[in-house]
């Protein structure tokens, strides 16, 4: 069957097997390879994308549910103005090792920064809760938390529509 949805602000139609997931569609049919598969079962967050401006594990979303909805992947986020700041914060904090989990963390970071109203006095605990859906085996998370603190100190404008 054919399915149409908005991918990173572009109407996209793709032929799919109705049983496949959004992650499969992104990676296998659309060659959007920035979204990673770490478990395929909603346990690691490597496949995090935005669906109608909310983060989801794309490996859990049947593609049929995506019909006429809006999907944003790391390929969309990386074109935004604010992304370079996120990139710099992660780089400067030394928050990246193997990098396999990182696009997922970036998506969760964007979501956190977008939804937070008062950026002052954010504790480690709040950041941890926001990123708790993402696993990383390399970094021990601390430098990722540091990167988010750096970003909180800057005034990042993240639009409601993400991109």
């Amino acid at each position: 069957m054919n399915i149409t949805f908005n991918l990173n602000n572009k109407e996209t139609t793709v032929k799919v097997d109705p049983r496949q997931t959004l992650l499969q569609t992104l990676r296998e049919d659309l060659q959007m390879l920035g979204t990673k598969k770490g478990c395929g079962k909603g346990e690691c967050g490597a496949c995090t994308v935005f669906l109608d401006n909310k983060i989801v594990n794309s490996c859990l979303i049947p593609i049929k549910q995506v019909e006429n909805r809006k999907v944003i992947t790391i390929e969309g986020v990386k074109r935004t103005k604010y992304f370079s700041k996120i990139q710099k914060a992660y780089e400067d904090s030394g928050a990246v090792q193997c990098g396999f989990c990182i696009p997922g963390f970036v998506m969760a970071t964007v979501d956190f920064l977008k939804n937070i109203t008062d950026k002052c006095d954010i504790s480690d605990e709040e950041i941890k809760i926001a990123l708790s859906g993402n696993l990383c085996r390399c970094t021990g998370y601390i430098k990722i938390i540091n990167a988010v603190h750096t970003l909180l100190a800057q005034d990042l404008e993240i639009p409601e529509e993400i991109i």
Partner: protein
Amino acid sequence: MKKFNKEKRVDAHKKIAGEEKYVSDLNVSDKLIGATIRSEYAHAKIEEIIFAQDFDWDDIVIMIAADIKNNYVAMIEKDMPFLAKSIVNYIGEPIVLLAAKNRKKLDEAINNIEIKYETLEPVLTFDEALSAAENKDDLIFKQMQVKRGNFSTAVKRANFIIEDMVETSYQEQAYMEPQGVIAIPKNNDKIEIRGSIQCPYYVQNAMDQLFADTDIKINVNANPLGGSFGGKEDFPSLISGHAALLAHKAQKPVEIIYDRKEDIKTTPKRHPSRSEFRVAVNEEGRIIGLEVKLSINGGAYCTLSPVVLERAVLTFGCYFIENICIDGYALKTNTVPNAAFRGFGGPQALFAAEMMIEKIAMELNLTPLEVRQINMLKFGDKLETGQPVNYSFGLPECLQNVLHKSNYIKKYKEFKKFNIENSAEAGYLKGIGMSLARHGGGFTGSGENYMDTVAAMELLQNGKLKIITAQTEMGQGVDTAYKKIVSDFFELPYSQILIENKDTSKVPNSGPTVASRSTMVVGKLIVDNCEKIKNKVLEEQDDLSEFTKKAVDYYKTNGKLKVESTYKHPDFVKYNEKELTGYAYPVFSWSANVAEIMLNLTTYEIEVTKYFTSQDIGRAINPQQAVAQIEGGTVQGIGYALFENMYTQKGQIVNNGFIDYIIPSIMDVPEIEADIVEESYFYGPYGAKGMGELVLVGVAPAIASALINATNKLTRKIPSTPEYIFKLLEE
């Protein structure tokens, strides 16, 4: 030169943007997908493999053992087949390979294959293995002994003889990127292997042996890895063989990428271990004799078990013990083969050694710190192999640092008092514990000298330098470290320094990316190569700021310049591998660690609240990433200590993924205070020695020690799950 941040990783930028190409991102056209059909029994005879007659097999590529001439995966032994022929030895052992255009086709094919078995008696548990091994030598992969002095005379002089037994469980590497390779055939006589491969030359060697007596030439090209921790050291040789066999038969690219469940259930893990110790102590608490029987469960095939065992028996704590005898056994069982994991035998041995210290403290009514201080190695002391620690020995300073930072001595008493007076009301116990740890850099014993490790460097037309080694980037930051070494040498910006792909057709065999050797050993060769290039390009009086200009001139006049260096240990580093005496390692890295925990008295859950560590890694090439390694290793060690629990049932691993194999999440991260002691190693690049494994090995014993402070009972088992603690407290 413009100043730039040299600590910044060279690969971070693209990884953050999702642009790094891991093996699953290669997008090779016209590829087939491979799948593995596996044994359902831990030990059985394969009677028949039945391919359903009414199924259309035309589009399916099939491989069985009978199709493979050299059916063994070359490692230390040749015991493991690519596909089981007549006997299966563990649940999950590969029997049939299939490849098809898509997953759907594959699944249909899988459903049309039936395997008939005659079951045999398996050996599954430690107890079974130990008792079976007593009368059957072929159930022992390796047996070895480290010995000095005479334990029985020590016993006669001792005031106390203390014995106990401790156990450690499996640990799964749980790299975020699962195992995967793709084999791409080219013109009938070539196959390129690309993949998540920690050691491309291991795979090269295995493929050369698999395809020996054919005209097929193989090259192995390691992609950046999405984590490995040892898990992709030996195993990729097996799946590369699988993919290559299918690809050769189909004459099409074949990709094999495991899903998480398959990865957890069938790939190698950290060896479970059991250590029984008997220790002779005098009245001051000095250890005068020690006898240990240390066994590890190797699983069904040998893989790297002998060398894991060797490192284990050579890493029994940071103490001077005059009379010592450690017997090591690597046992064969009908379970998934175990192999390399960061620490490589060290974590098991250090856990046992540190629990021995704790037990002595309990028996003699001393504090664990006192027992450590009485017995700790001193500068100039000789280790059990006779190797003196008389250079690059930062352990005393590490200990001092960590005691100071953590306020251990005061808290040790305070927490005990709290536990007696306030814990019932508070609902939790508090604990503070410590560990001392060491890790030998590079291969054990003579390995490094046998290897003839070669690294190359090339001067390019535009004056740029290319670093040419087989060391893979798995997340540990080797590419950045190497660029920094060259950049520091020539005062060049990173843009002037390139790194060759880790492709065996392009890089020499600089040995595997293992054993904390990439910086210490191969990094040294990079410095040697820099020296050689400098000598060619610059006259003695020239200063380095002219390097690029002179290099361009040099190229114009002389053409290409490529240099190579070969590694040899310092002359005095000699090891007797029969007797296990002499220099087991050219140098050790050291750490002292303190962990604070809270033990919930309702749920028996343990939270690590603070972690202090001081680590002597020699000169830190990249201080920021060194601390990043420490943090990552610490958190991985917390999982090992407390909740990474593998369950087996009749030899089958029950865990399916991260829901039932719990690795630390961001919620489990304590405050970590790390510092680095830079006791320079005279032979390493700028004084550096190994660190990638040291960061993990001391964690579990420090946490176990904190548990003892909380419970007043010896921690005999890791992971110390709530179930275990519950039982311990009920005792």
